[in-house]
């Protein structure tokens, strides 16, 4: 390896640092991306097969709290990042309790996905139980339920 002059080496380090920071930025973009996962407990007909809705099912995304869904219910979970674990607790026809854990990843750039629980438990392929979801109408700006916290610095005018 050819020896580099100190200034060259310095530039190389600077370049490497910039690349590293850019990579970190890209990484943050993926692991910090917010997604909404819609969890659906509805009977699904797909290619002639019917996946029957549960009368009651519990589901949790990652380590969030369990959501209880009756038949035809839909709920949502807000998550960060692409890869998630879905835990489903259900009772089968023989009143046997089962727990199912499935790993999946949200497609890049998708804000919302719809997970059909009956299809998931019924053993359908991922493309069936995990589908991209687009809100039917333009999203109205979300109204924040939490009170808007402001600092008490807003007493002075800021422009003339």
């Amino acid at each position, binding site marked *: 390896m050819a020896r580099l002059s100190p200034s060259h080496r310095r530039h190389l380090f600077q370049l490497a640092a910039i690349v590293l920071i850019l990579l970190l930025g890209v990484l943050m973009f993926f692991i910090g991306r917010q997604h909404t996962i819609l969890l659906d407990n509805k009977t699904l007909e797909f290619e002639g097969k019917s996946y029957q809705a549960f009368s009651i099912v519990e589901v949790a995304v990652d380590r969030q709290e369990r959501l209880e869904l009756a038949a035809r219910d839909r709920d949502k979970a807000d998550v960060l990042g692409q890869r998630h674990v879905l835990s489903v607790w259900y009772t089968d026809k023989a009143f046997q309790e089962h727990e199912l854990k499935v790993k999946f990843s949200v497609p890049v750039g998708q804000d919302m996905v719809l997970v059909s629980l009956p299809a998931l438990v019924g053993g359908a392929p991922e493309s069936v139980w995990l589908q991209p979801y687009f809100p039917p109408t333009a999203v109205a700006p979300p109204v924040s339920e939490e009170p808007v916290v402001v600092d008490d610095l807003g007493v*002075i*005018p800021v*422009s*003339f």
Partner: protein
Amino acid sequence: MIRVRQLIKSFGWPRIIIALFLLSLFIIAPMVGVKVSSSLSDTIARFGMNGIMVLAMVPMVHSGCGLNFGLPLGIIAGLLGGTLSIQFGFLGGSSFIMAVLLTTPFAVLFGFGYGKLLNKVKGGEMMIATYVGFSSVAFMCMMWLLLPYTSPTMVWGYTGSGLRTTISTEGFYLHVLNDFLKVQIGENFSFPTGMMLFFALMAFIVWAFLHTKTGTAMTAVGSNPVFARASGINIDRTRTLSVIMSTWLGAIGILVYQQSFGFIQLYMGPFYMALPAVSAILIGGASVNKATITNVVVGTFLFQGILTMTPSVMNSLIHTDMSEVIRIVVSNGMILYALTRKSEATR
């Protein structure tokens, strides 16, 4: 060619750009359906309103105290005079005269203290002046609440104490200067002769003062303190005098402003009033240590012209009101330009 170049140099590029910008606004205006006559009339009215506050920069620049960022202090003296005149029940033209008279002792007192303070901080005047302005405005905010004003036109109706944020000058000195010998040409153009005469009077007083013995001493203090001291001028006293003058002019300036604008703005109203005045005189060709009456006239006209023209022209041209942004960039850019230039010690 060389003479042209020298002329340009003495006028300064930023000024030429701004003047051309204003000129182009006046040329575009009729094409996009903005009436030039009414715009011109507005510009002149605003010139008269703001001129004296810009004039208030001159004495302090002359004595080497830098730009008067502490203009709000003078404005407060004016507010005190104006509100007191209304409180004492003067009406019409007499209320304006009384306001001027009542303002004067406050302006002299404030200016004296402010001048003494600035003498202690030579070299750092501008920053301290800024903050003297701000803190005096904030202090007066408390005072407006506490002072025992009782005039029902001025105090809050439901509590009966504490002054309102804006007080109408209608019935008092609204348009007393504007309407004096007013010339109305056509429907859209009017010339507020009284206000312009008043401005001319003030400008003349300042000009004449600067040509008296004390006035030339003031200029000497600003341009060459060592020489001034050697020739036996009391530097601190001269500086204090200049600050008193600036403060008084600021106070009179706000009264003229109010009589045209129609409202007395209290509380946070005067907070940033120094900055437009500062940038106006700088646009007119002044620098941190050099300012003339011509600078005041040219600068105020250019600055107020841009302020009046940009909103209407921009709005009809691109249907967006970007005038606010243009104003902020132009006025602060101008101040920055002046601050970063090597200050000419001698002229």
